[in-house]
């Protein structure tokens, strides 16, 4: 049995413009994570604060947040892998607990993207590419994924309608998620008729910038059992990378960092793709979810579109994916996203996902990607 568990997971409401400060956002997530646990703030031995610094006004936010949550004088520090920062935080927390250095560690992710205009946020994202060689051409996150989408369409016959069907599903589940920013159901026509952002991705193929925070509390196994009745065990936890440049990519129809992380995570957990009961994947764009189906082995390469076409990723399907609405509905407050995905799987495995519970879910998976496929993280959790 794995000896590191998640004992609590929470998030703030994700919104376009939260109207509060980052410390207060972090508090909302922290409060929900601690709900029902038999510990207090003083039992937390260390905190790891996760965000993408290019969006932050506050320098060194770890100090600020640990003060506000009264986590001083315990150690606190900052980690970053853009959109997967809080998965990286979880990985570091796991290591701190596994090594015996700490018993209980809090991973807090946040982002307040409303501090910037949409174009300025896009410029910051563009600088998440190689600033000497590729950002000067105007490479953006949606443009990078759009190039993957085009390659996938050309090679496998995936269509814009397939992509739109991912959003139809995710908007369906997002509509009942009280933490989601976007809670309207969208029709296929709504999505196909929305403004073209970067071909073939339209407005509703893209997730929205958002404000939000997440918090995951990790504990040593023996301690975890004293804190909660339902510890969720971390059984697979793998990170991998691909090149920063698009020029360096060897494959344009899938993310190799995700393929590598998935392969190793299944091995670490001793499970296969077909053993996964419920998954959260990084649907920053509709195409990203289809790539994830294939990269995670839920579908063979080129057959991801078939899964959404056959509704196999709905709650009643073969492998339910993003049944909390995904990033497409929740919004994507960069540093908070991984923790929010973890929270959804923890609730599913505890049988507490009231809006869209997958019956009897025992093994769950989180796929969280940083940048345009630079950082791949796959985490497997078990009840």
């Amino acid at each position, binding site marked *: 049995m794995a000896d590191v568990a998640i004992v609590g997971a929470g998030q703030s409401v994700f919104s376009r413009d939260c109207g509060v400060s980052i410390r207060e956002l972090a508090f909302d997530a922290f409060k929900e994570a601690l709900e029902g646990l038999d510990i207090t703030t003083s039992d937390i031995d260390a905190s790891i604060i996760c965000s993408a610094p290019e969006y932050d006004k506050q320098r060194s936010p770890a100090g600020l947040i640990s003060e506000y949550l009264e986590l001083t004088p315990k150690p606190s520090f900052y980690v970053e892998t853009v959109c997967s920062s809080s998965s990286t935080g979880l990985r570091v927390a796991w290591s701190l607990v596994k090594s015996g250095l700490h018993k209980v560690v809090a991973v807090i992710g946040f982002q307040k993207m409303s501090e910037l205009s949409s174009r300025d946020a896009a410029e910051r994202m563009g600088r998440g590419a190689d600033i000497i060689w590729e*950002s000067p051409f105007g490479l953006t996150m949606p*443009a990078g994924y759009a190039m993957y989408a085009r390659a996938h369409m050309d090679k496998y016959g995936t269509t814009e309608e397939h992509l739109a069907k991912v959003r139809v599903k995710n908007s369906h589940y997002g509509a009942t998620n009280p933490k989601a920013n976007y809670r309207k159901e969208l029709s296929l026509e709504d999505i196909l008729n929305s403004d073209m952002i970067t071909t073939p991705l339209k407005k509703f193929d893209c997730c929205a910038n958002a404000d939000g925070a997440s918090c995951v509390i990790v504990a040593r196994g023996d301690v975890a059992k004293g804190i909660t009745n339902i510890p969720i065990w971390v059984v697979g936890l793998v990170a991998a990378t691909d090149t920063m440049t698009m020029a360096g990519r060897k494959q344009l129809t899938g993310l190799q960092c995700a393929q590598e992380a998935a392969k190793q995570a299944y091995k670490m957990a001793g499970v296969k793709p077909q053993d996964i009961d419920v998954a959260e994947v990084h649907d920053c764009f509709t195409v990203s979810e289809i790539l994830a189906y294939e990269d995670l082995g839920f579908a063979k390469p080129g057959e991801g579109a078939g899964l959404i076409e056959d509704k196999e990723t709905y709650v009643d399907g073969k492998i339910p994916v993003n049944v909390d609405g995904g990033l497409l509905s929740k919004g994507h407050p960069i540093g908070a996203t991984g923790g929010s995905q973890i929270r959804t799987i923890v609730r599913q495995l505890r049988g507490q996902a009231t809006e869209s519970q997958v019956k009897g879910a025992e093994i769950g998976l989180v796929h969280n990607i940083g940048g345009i496929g630079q950082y791949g993280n796959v985490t497997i959790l078990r009840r």
Partner: protein
Amino acid sequence: MGFENFGTVSFTTEAKAAEFITYLEQGKVMATRCPKCGVSYFPPKADCPSCLSGEVEWFEVKGKGKLATYTIVNYGPSGFENDAPYILALGEFEGGIQIMSRLSKDIAPSDIKAGMSLVVSSLKRPDGRISYEFKKG
């Protein structure tokens, strides 16, 4: 001279690999190769992490490549608003070299096809900045 005049917006200037810009001013798009272990690099590297050599040689990317993928960007970030729409593309060239750049405005969107033949060529922009782009090969 560094990268200060490169592309639509340059975010940094200094690099050992800035020799690239000197060649680009002469109309050449260059890659680097390590003479010790033979590995070639695009984007160019001034160092070879494969064998830890700090000596690399420059060579011109010549010949025809193929369009691997592309996207027509309608929404430009800050600093790129006046460029949109622009077409980003990846081109595959000989020797395993892959390049990301823009497609020339001479290529009509309706003519773009995966696998189409491309050449990479230097570009002097009307605003005086320099870059490189893909043209029909």
